[in-house]
């Protein structure tokens, strides 16, 4: 067997590391801004591009795809080459991956604050960027699979199984969730509607967590912890069982984001049940990581890298226990729409993803520069301040979540709500929100210190752009070897492994999504539900543009305290024309599904101009430009036609003029209404469209009118 000489590409890793650090700090800064805006709404500064609703998706996309995304690529490009004893198959594809990904991020930074959004969480980027994501993702996958096929290490290490599963699953999730019909260059409507859109979205959303935030990082954990600790992995058997169990079960858990909503009961139960079953596979990863440190615990005391990794894995374990607990309907009744969900997300994000990234970077940068870390003291400081930051972030938000829920559901013995004004429950939380800002600041400070430390380290050493290595070439082996277990066989067969992973992850999606789409009885038809009028459609698009669904939900749950507060609970059939659905995930402001007719048009006019004029103490940003900007209805025909393609029953030829006429008529009516209230507003202003939409919400079903209504 001849020894082949080759070189590992470190330059690409360095590029990704730089991007990880820069986007990490950027993403955290945007998050800190958003958090501060909740406490000091003046920080919205009356600038459309800076309002909470527009920058919150920028924060989520930045930390998930820019920070963790680049972290994944950095770790994978480093570890994959060494685990396979070969250089990346194509340097060109590596660089296309890098620059393509950064351009995608840049386009997010530009388009999201400008209001170009699909409103679907972690999939807000509009259709041209979705296409770019798919292309770059495939570039990465092709490069990776080709590298694997050209490897000099016969068997694939567990980390590589996770990388393959990541590639395959994220591709499937992204493509299927991004089925949208473009209306213009930066606007599209989701292919799915209402309940089905919700299910597909959270099949995607939960598994974005699973296969973007978890599986690649588990792969990285399997590489970097044994390397950093110098210890063997605890149990090979455990890695097999938990890998396959994890990728199979995770997919089914999507509906746990939709408990007590209009999603059919059977789908909700599947979500709950599979989330509980998911505890063990997730903890398998935690155990393998922690138990690998058996015999090296004294090293953990000295080494900041191992400290980061231990806290990361522990946070992973906590999160993957809390998640299933939140998937129980009784717990979810308390947590849904509150800050408890946010706290949970950040334990995982800051604890697992953040800390593991930091540990990995502290290990990689000195190694690639042939030197030691510039300041171990600073790394230790970073460790402690970020741990503290996580605590200051999560604990106040747990408190806030409980407080808000218990206020929402409290009744007086006379039978009415104790806190009928939603705003009272929000104002109660402001001290906790302030603490959360402190926590985020601590965490960000740590990241900045890390950036400085890593920069100093790279300057101290000299970068090894291409690392020499040698290994014998692999001889081809045909068929099964005698005594070889099935798994040992599939470990040396990357394509069957890929196909097997694909089959396994498709099962859950098919079982949950196909019946919801194909079996009509899952969404009982309500005859009185009609499509949105053209003006209401335009208003809905404004609602999406401003990111209102980031603070307001549109899903009244079947609980007494919700029906007392908002009206009749939401039915599946009401959402059949909602492309995309707007159920929301959080109530920083009240639910709006039954907002129609609750307040006069003039109330909405004043409220959007300055929320505090109608709700003193409100933390909602101001939207003065809605009152001064003209509605851009130039795409109306395209929008109506797109909706018709998607199955919304507008009359034949409605887009050819009748739609425009109806829009103007309705706008005039609303303007006249406002005039009655001494408000002069031209009918072509954006606020008119938004008022039309808000006044439509929830009015499709006939809620029982109060007896003895006073005649108008």
């Amino acid at each position: 067997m001849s020894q082949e000489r080759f070189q590992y590409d470190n330059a690409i890793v360095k590029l990704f590391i730089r991007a990880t650090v820069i986007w990490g700090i950027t993403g955290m800064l945007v998050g800190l801004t958003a958090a501060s805006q909740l406490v000091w709404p003046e920080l919205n500064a009356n600038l459309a591009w800076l309002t909470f609703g527009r920058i919150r998706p920028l924060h989520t996309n930045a930390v998930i795809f820019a920070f963790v995304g680049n972290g994944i690529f950095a770790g994978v490009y480093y570890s994959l080459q060494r685990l396979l004893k070969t250089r990346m198959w194509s340097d060109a594809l590596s660089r296309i991956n890098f620059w393509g990904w950064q351009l995608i991020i840049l386009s997010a930074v530009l388009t999201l604050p400008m209001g170009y959004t699909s409103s679907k969480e972690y999939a807000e980027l509009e259709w041209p960027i979705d296409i770019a994501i798919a292309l770059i993702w495939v570039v990465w996958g092709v490069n990776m699979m080709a590298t694997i096929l050209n490897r000099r290490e016969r068997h694939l290490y567990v980390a590589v199984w996770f990388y393959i599963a990541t590639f395959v699953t994220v591709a499937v999730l992204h493509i299927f969730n991004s089925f949208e019909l473009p209306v213009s260059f930066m606007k599209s409507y989701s292919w799915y509607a209402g309940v089905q859109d919700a299910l597909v979205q959270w099949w995607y959303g939960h598994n974005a967590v699973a296969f973007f935030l978890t599986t690649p990082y588990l792969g990285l954990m399997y590489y970097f912890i044994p390397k950093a600790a110098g210890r063997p992995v605890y149990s090979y058997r455990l890695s097999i069982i938990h890998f396959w169990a994890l990728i199979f079960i995770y997919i089914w858990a999507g509906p746990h984001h939709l408990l007590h909503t209009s999603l059919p009961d059977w789908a909700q139960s599947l979500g709950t049940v599979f989330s509980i079953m998911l505890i063990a596979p997730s903890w398998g990863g935690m155990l393998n990581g922690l138990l690998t440190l058996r015999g090296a615990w004294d090293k953990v005391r000295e080494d900041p890298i191992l400290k980061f990794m231990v806290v990361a894995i522990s946070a992973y374990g906590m999160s993957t226990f809390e998640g299933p607990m939140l998937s129980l309907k009784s717990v979810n009744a308390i947590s849904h729409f509150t800050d408890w969900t946010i706290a949970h997300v950040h334990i995982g994000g800051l604890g697992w993803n953040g800390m593991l990234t930091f540990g990995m970077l502290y290990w990689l940068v000195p190694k690639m520069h042939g030197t030691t870390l510039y300041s171990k003291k600073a790394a230790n400081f970073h460790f402690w301040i970020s741990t503290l930051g996580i605590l200051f972030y999560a604990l106040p938000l747990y408190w806030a979540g409980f407080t808000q829920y218990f206020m929402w559901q409290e009744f007086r013995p006379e039978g009415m709500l104790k806190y009928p004004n939603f705003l009272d429950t929000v104002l109660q939380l402001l001290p906790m929100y302030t603490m959360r800002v402190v926590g985020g600041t601590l965490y960000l400070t740590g990241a900045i210190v890390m950036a400085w430390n890593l920069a100093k380290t790279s300057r101290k050493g000299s970068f090894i752009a291409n690392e020499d290595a040698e290994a014998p070439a692999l001889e081809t082996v045909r068929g099964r070897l005698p005594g070889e277990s099935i798994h040992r066989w599939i470990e040396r067969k990357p394509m069957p492994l890929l196909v097997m992973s694909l089959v396994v992850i498709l099962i859950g999606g098919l079982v949950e999504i196909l019946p919801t789409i194909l079996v009509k009885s899952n969404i009982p038809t309500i005859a009185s539900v009609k499509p949105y009028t053209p003006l209401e459609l335009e208003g809905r698009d404004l609602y999406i543009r401003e990111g209102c669904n980031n603070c307001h939900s549109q899903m009244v749950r079947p609980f007494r305290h919700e029906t007392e507060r908002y009206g009749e609970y939401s039915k599946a059939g009401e959402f059949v024309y909602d492309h995309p659905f707007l159920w929301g995930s959080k109530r920083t402001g009240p639910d709006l599904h039954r907002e129609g007719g609750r307040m006069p048009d003039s109330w909405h006019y004043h409220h959007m101009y300055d929320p505090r004029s109608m709700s003193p103490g409100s933390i909602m940003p101001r939207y003065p430009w809605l009152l001064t900007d003209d509605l851009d209805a130039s795409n109306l025909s395209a929008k109506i036609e797109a909706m018709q393609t998607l199955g919304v029953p507008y009359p034949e030829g409605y887009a050819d003029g009748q739609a425009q006429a109806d829009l103007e008529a309705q706008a005039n009516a609303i303007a006249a209404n406002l005039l009655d209230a001494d408000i002069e507003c031209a009918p072509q202003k954006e606020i008119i469209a938004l008022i039309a939409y808000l006044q439509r919400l929830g009015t499709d079903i006939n809620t029982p009118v109060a007896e003895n209504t006073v005649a108008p």
Partner: protein
Amino acid sequence: MMRFIKHHLSSMDGIEIWPLISLLIFFSFFVLLFVYVMRMRKGYIDEVSSQPLNDSKGTKAALLVVLLGSAPNLFAQEAAPFGTHYGLSDDVWIVMLGSTALLLTAMIIGAMGIFKNLVEHLAEVKAKQQAAILASMFVLTDSAFWGLVTANLFLMGYLLLVMRNIRLVSKELKPQIEPAPQAAAVAEEARVKQPSIWAVIWQKLNAHESLEKEPDLLLDHAYDGIQELDNRLPPWWLYGFYVSIVAGVIYLFNYHIFGYAPLMDEAYEIEMAEAAAETEAYLASLALNVDERTVEYVLEESRLNQGAGLFAKHCKACHAADGGGGVGPNLTDNYWLHGGQINDLFTTIKYGVPAKGMKSWKADLTPTEIQNVSTYILSLNGTTPLAPKDPQGDLEEPAQPKGAEADEATASL
């Protein structure tokens, strides 16, 4: 936050199972800990004590706090050398007695909690009178609860004190009871042959092999220097996994196949029915059943005060702080869209005017509150607001409060 949740724990169905479970857990832990400590060998303790990690800074800090509060005890003349012949090290004592104190605290709080919940649960099931008598025996008022907590904290502190004394004395006596070298060697061997029960439990749960066995477990895998061990799947993890799968099956059968548990919609109907029954029972017991037919305009200081407060909170956004109007009509003039008598105001406020955008307040205000707000609004009649809205509706005579003297009062407002 506590004030929002304190009273709800008792109203949740089946809540008493939780303190019971917690009591069971704590009690079992206490028993196991006791057994573990009693079976410990001195040699093992010494070995663990000499580990480099034992710098006892935390211990010293905790004891310093206790020391400062226990000055009189410094002058104790005789302390019974309680556990000295076991030769247990300081830290084990601290752990043991500290946890005992904590467990006692938890048990006492848990027990009181259970009794309170059980009794309140009984109150729903049995006749109220019976339950009231029973409850008065066990009821835990807020002050009693916090008093118990404080008492337990003092108990903990006292125990830490006592244990410090024992530790001091045992330290002095230790050299006298050091076993002979031969005996030590024998004890050493005995320890090696018989692992402690705690180690046995841990080993069985995890199927850990000892670290010495590691070379045997190494597989012939090597990935960039990373090796893998062939350890077994931890039994607790594996059987826990199976249990979660079985639990999932049972859940699905329970909800969807046998239908024992109600689904979302049915659970909602049940909740609403229960609430309606409760509310009706409560209201029937009170004389708050004013409605739009029976309401009367009575000018009273207390009514005006409450009405003013409610108006400022709920109405001023649309009707202006002085009633002059804005989004809603002017309430200070004699022109009324929906009638200006108190029962008209009551009706308007209670049911709202949905077509015009006035919200219905019957879900937010009790009938008495609606009466008082109406009273306050009528008292604003004839006042001069800062920016009065133009009159809307029909001209009416101002409403007259009950009683002639009230006429003077209205005129002077």
